[in-house]
């Protein structure tokens, strides 16, 4: 039987002293090794859900278990996040002054997973894995959108995380690059066995995942068959 890697039990999240309810009692289980997507219109709570699963924030109420650990019991979210979660953002969010190699090294600073002297070697290997061996020493301004996102993907893998969260990963690239990126994510999911959660508006991207969860008004309203999105 599949092992749950993320479990949300009646999770709520409100802002401005309860005036805005972004999540209203969300229940969801995500299993180890899954490649799944979360779809929904703007303001439906996708990003809030992503922030909670990414341990960037804590739920207002309810339980959120990541890799078997209840987030309410975690004291140091920074350390927890660096060890368990890899992030891929729509706008890449690379540090502009650092080279591709240095950007990939960033998450390894405080995780305690990688020895300082091994950081560079590991970052180099990850960039080779995503096909950027010739761009290792380039700064982000000298990379195309697709290349920047591949650097971000390599960076998300730096600490061998249990979960990789991708927020609209193809939102800033053309359709050809978008297709190539989703293939890369699929390959990583299969080769590394990491759970991949993609938040997207794009039905074509969602269709490439194994499971599609739909959200509306801070709640999960159901699941869709990915193939049905292509019709």
């Amino acid at each position, binding site marked *: 039987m599949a092992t749950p890697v993320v479990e949300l039990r009646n999770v709520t999240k409100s802002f401005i002293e309860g005036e805005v309810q972004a999540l209203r009692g969300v229940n969801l289980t995500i299993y180890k090794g899954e490649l799944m997507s979360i779809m929904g219109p703007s303001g439906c709570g996708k990003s809030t859900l992503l922030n909670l699963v990414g341990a960037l924030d804590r739920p207002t109420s309810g339980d959120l278990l990541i890799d078997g650990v209840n987030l309410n019991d975690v004291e*140091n979210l*920074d350390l927890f996040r660096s060890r368990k979660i890899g992030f891929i953002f729509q706008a890449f*969010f690379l*540090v*502009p002054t*650092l080279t591709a190699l*240095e950007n990939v090294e*960033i998450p390894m600073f405080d995780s305690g997973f990688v020895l300082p002297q091994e950081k560079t070697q590991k970052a180099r290997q990850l960039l080779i894995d995503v096909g950027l061996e010739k761009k290792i020493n380039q700064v982000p301004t000298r990379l195309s959108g697709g290349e920047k996102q591949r650097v971000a993907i390599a960076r998300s893998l730096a600490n061998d995380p249990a979960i990789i969260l991708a927020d609209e990963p193809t939102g800033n690239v053309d359709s050809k690059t978008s297709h190539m990126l989703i293939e890369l994510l699929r390959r990583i999911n299969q080769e590394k066995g990491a759970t991949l959660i993609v938040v997207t508006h794009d039905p074509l991207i969602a269709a490439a995942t194994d499971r599609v969860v739909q959200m509306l008004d801070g709640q999960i309203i159901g699941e869709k068959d990915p193939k049905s999105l292509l019709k």
Partner: protein
Amino acid sequence: MVLVQIVWKNLLRRKIRSVLTVVGIAVGIGAVVSLVSITDGFVHGWKNMIKGHGVDLTIVKAGGEANFVLNTLDESLGDQLRQIKGLDSVTETMVDIATVEDKPSIMIFGYTLGGDYINRLKIVNGGLFTSKDKDEIILGSVLAKSLKVTVGDEVEVERELFTVVGICESSNILENGAGIVSLQRLQKLMNRPGKVTTFGIRLQNPSQLPEIKKEIETRLPNISALSSQEFVDENEGVKMAQALSWGISLIVLLVGAIATMNTMFMSVFERTREIGILRALGWRKGRIINMIMQESIVLSLCGGVLGIFLGMGAVRMLNLFRQLRGLIQAEYTTFLFSEAIILALLLGILGGLLPAWRGSRLPPVEALRYE
């Protein structure tokens, strides 16, 4: 990659801003370095002069200032001092400020012919004055050079003409930039008959200094007998110069810290989202603080090092001015350089603390949303 590489790249991102901050700090540190080195040089010169005169005790008015110029004593006091046992010699001196040619503030020493002070002068050209009443003057080498006069020439002192009979060279800047006439001639010139500013006392046995000092002060309650060190420490000019350099250092610390803080705050505001990314990728608050503090300290230390050179350059520049030539003798000590670097370090720490704290407190979710 190590953190310091990131720090360096962050500083190079806004080169002009970083350079301007460094220059701002350097100007402040330079001001401290030049001022303190000149003060130290002055104190050192003062000490040298007192020691060079070979006197063990200097007599000044009790409760008055240990100031050569402002101190006034009756010349007759000398006879009372000479009655005290254990003294080898008592020499009267007068110091005043006079206009020499077109130079308004020149120190003029009035020394007794045959006394300790004049016997220790190192004459490099000419000789000593021949009579206590003649209009003769010995010039310090720096003053002679700046007046462009030599032995045999005449110079105007307080609108009276004096013949230059000798040029002397001293290890201290004060005497080098001064003129020396006989005590009696100076009393007449400055209209202070029967007055002197200090007495220099040489002891038969210098180890008796504490006892003799006590005896002088008991017998003559209106005067103080100061050792060379005390005379230097008690000097109003020295005290003022030291207080001034401390005051300037504090102002530099404050202004420098504010300038650094401003730069660092701007840098943190600009990088709000980037700091959020670093936090999202697992950087601890402590590492963010460390990064911003290092940036601030690198800026201030660069400013400190540049400031030292700037300060030394400023002293050289001051010496190029005709009016100041030879009168400024800066003293550079390891202590001064350490003080400059510590000052720079302090203002880097003070300037970086608040921005670093703010940067580390940015919630990653908010920071990532920041446009």
